[in-house]
């Protein structure tokens, strides 16, 4: 059952991702990104990571996409078609293909026979316990990073006097 769902969602994600990198319309690109993000969130749900899924929706789809759209707007992104690919296209294709080839080969070879068993999803409880007991240090550091990024973004984008 999960395999089927997975297959559909995977197809969706793949399609959206490919369209993201090939579209010539900037806003369409943002939309396709949204599709990718949504598909990933569904996958999270499938893989019993509910909290992460909803955080994905909240942060990524909610904030990041909006932020990106704001960015597009602020930088006067041309509405409509335009040539969006740089001269490095052949090189990029090669690199991407190489990366895909290597990583998928490794992964396939390593995890060939393994299966995952679905059971109860993880609760927020257990996740929270894990975060605040075992992984509290990374948590604090990440929050500091967030703070720094916040301050940095404000400083950077400030209008000069």
């Amino acid at each position, binding site marked *: 059952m999960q395999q089927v769902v997975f297959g559909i969602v995977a197809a969706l994600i793949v399609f959206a991702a490919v369209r993201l990198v090939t579209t010539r319309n900037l806003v369409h690109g943002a939309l396709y990104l949204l599709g990718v993000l949504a598909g990933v969130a569904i996958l999270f749900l499938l893989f019993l990571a509910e909290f992460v899924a909803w955080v994905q929706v909240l942060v990524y789809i909610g904030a990041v996409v909006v932020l990106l759209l704001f960015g597009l707007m602020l930088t006067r992104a041309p509405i409509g078609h335009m040539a969006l690919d*740089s001269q*490095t296209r052949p*090189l*990029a294709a090669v*690199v991407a293909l*190489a*990366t895909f080839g*290597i*990583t998928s080969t*490794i992964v396939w070879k390593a995890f060939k026979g393994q299966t995952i068993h679905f059971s109860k999803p993880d609760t927020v409880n257990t996740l929270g316990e894990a975060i605040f007991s075992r992984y509290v240090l990374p948590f604090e550091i990440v929050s500091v990073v967030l703070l720094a990024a916040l301050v940095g973004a404000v400083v950077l984008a400030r209008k000069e006097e």
Partner: protein
Amino acid sequence: MRAYAWLIPVFPLLSFFLIVFFGKRLPRKGHEIGILAIAASLLVSLGVFFQQIAHSEQTYERSVTWFRFGEGGRFVELGVHIDGLAAVMFVVVCTVSLLVQIYSTEYMRDDVRYTWYYACLSLFTGSMLNLVIANNLIQLLIGWEGVGLASYLLIGHWHEERANSNAAMKAFITTRIGDVGFMFGIFVLFWAAGSFNIAHITSVVAAGGVARGTLTWAAVLLFCGAIGKSAQVPLQVWLPDAMAGPTPVSALIHAATMVVAGVYLVARMYGVFNASPAALNEVAIIGAITMVMAAGLALVQDDIKKVLAYSTISQLAYMVAALGVGAYTASVFHIWTHAWFKALLFLGVGSVSHAVHSFSMSKMGGLRKQMPTTFKTYVIGSLALAGLFPLAGFWSKDDIIGGAYHAARAGSSVGWFVFLAALATAFLTAAYVARMIALTFYGKPKYDPEHVHPHESPKAMTGPLVFLAFMAIVSGFLGLPGKLNLFADWVRFGEVEHSFNLALAGVSTLLAVSGLYLGWTIFRMNKVRIDLARSPLAWFYTLLQRRYYFDDLYFNGIVHPISGPIARAAYWTNQKVLDAVINFAGAAAVSLGKGLYNGVDQPIIDGAVNGLATGAGAAGNGLKFWQTGNVQIYAAGLFVGIAVFVGVFLIRS
């Protein structure tokens, strides 16, 4: 006292160094040290002398080894050898040296190099005493060379005049030529007898350990040195010119002491000479020739010092010839007496020249009134030289004539030659002596009365004259004939010789008196002298004037070619050949350097360095295109690198 004999040469040599370093600061400018040193040596010499004559049979010898060389225990030593001959020589050298130094305090007053003069006198005396005291040929040679050096320095004392330094050079080089033979003689003896020690050599020779031919060679070579140093034919040319030096120097060196070094050498090595009749004959013949020749030259000189110089050559020839005919004691006795009266004559000449400021007899005359002491002592010295009874020269000269006669009667034809030469020379000696006195002290004054006011010399100069005159009178009494001959007890070779012959003494006195008379009459009457120039003997007169053309021969035959063509040839060789080699080497080095620079340094080394720099630049130029500024290119590079790393890890695992 004999144990202290080594001090005798040391005192003057020490004083040489002291005068050189401290002389100028002393109140009397250094002559205090000189006179003190020689007085000390004289005292020691007298002590040694009296000790030696008390034990006249013994010889005293001590030595220390100086250095070793070669294998087989060969060595060179420094030592003393005291016998009658050495003891007598000590007294002569020290006394005459002391008198000369006292005399010089007045004669050389205000001289430009007073201190150095006394230093050289001390050097000379020390070297001469070293020569006399030496027990081996090397030490004797050192003393020999030392006196040659001192003679050079003193002849050229007033070297501001070119003629003086030329004379010094002539003396040195002429004696040097003799020294070459002398050194070879030493080598031959060393090779034959295995040692430089004189006593050793003498004993080896006496035992017959050396072949006759070798001995003859050795003796002839040794005599070469004597010919040079004692101014015999053919190396006599330097002594007249050496009169350019100060007169006290002439008195000390060229009359009484240095020139007798040659005679002393033959006497010292008499063991070698005695074993080779051929060598003795050569010695006698050279002596005979020289004595007549020099006496003839003395007759025609205008310069009074040159008269005395030729006289010295002649008297030295007497001593040499005496040794040649075996009259050992007579020869040494003549050294003894000759030293006194010849020194007296030279110092007297100095006194005269101080008065008239000239040595030329044609500028003197009638001085006997103004200079009585000088005159009297000078006459005593001259008559001693002429050999008049009972002055010193009579006894020693007659010993020699007697010795020659004795040898002649024993069958030696050379002995006859020497005998006749000695008689002829006695005659000539008296003649030139009379001429000398006549021209100098008698007659009308020929000097310029405006500028020249002759007067007697100070005490420092006349004192030595008086003492020497005393010695000229009494020194002969040491050699009275027969049992009274003390000198023969002290100095002899082998048996005591009996050379004195009353009949011969009478003959020689007759010759002397007639010579005096002849000299007196001829040269008292000046006009006769002028006639001589035009008389049939004019060619002879010219021969004498030109000194038998010896000087011309040497100058044109040897000196001129060397200084002219040979020197030019040597210069040409130096410039064209030697310099060419050096210049070529230099040019080769330069071109090598240039070639290396242009061929190696510039292209290769500099090229390598520059090439590296250019290469770096070119690499940068080539690589700069990677800096596209395009971030995506950089990111692509990142990813490619990661992919490569992963791939490598994959393959390795």
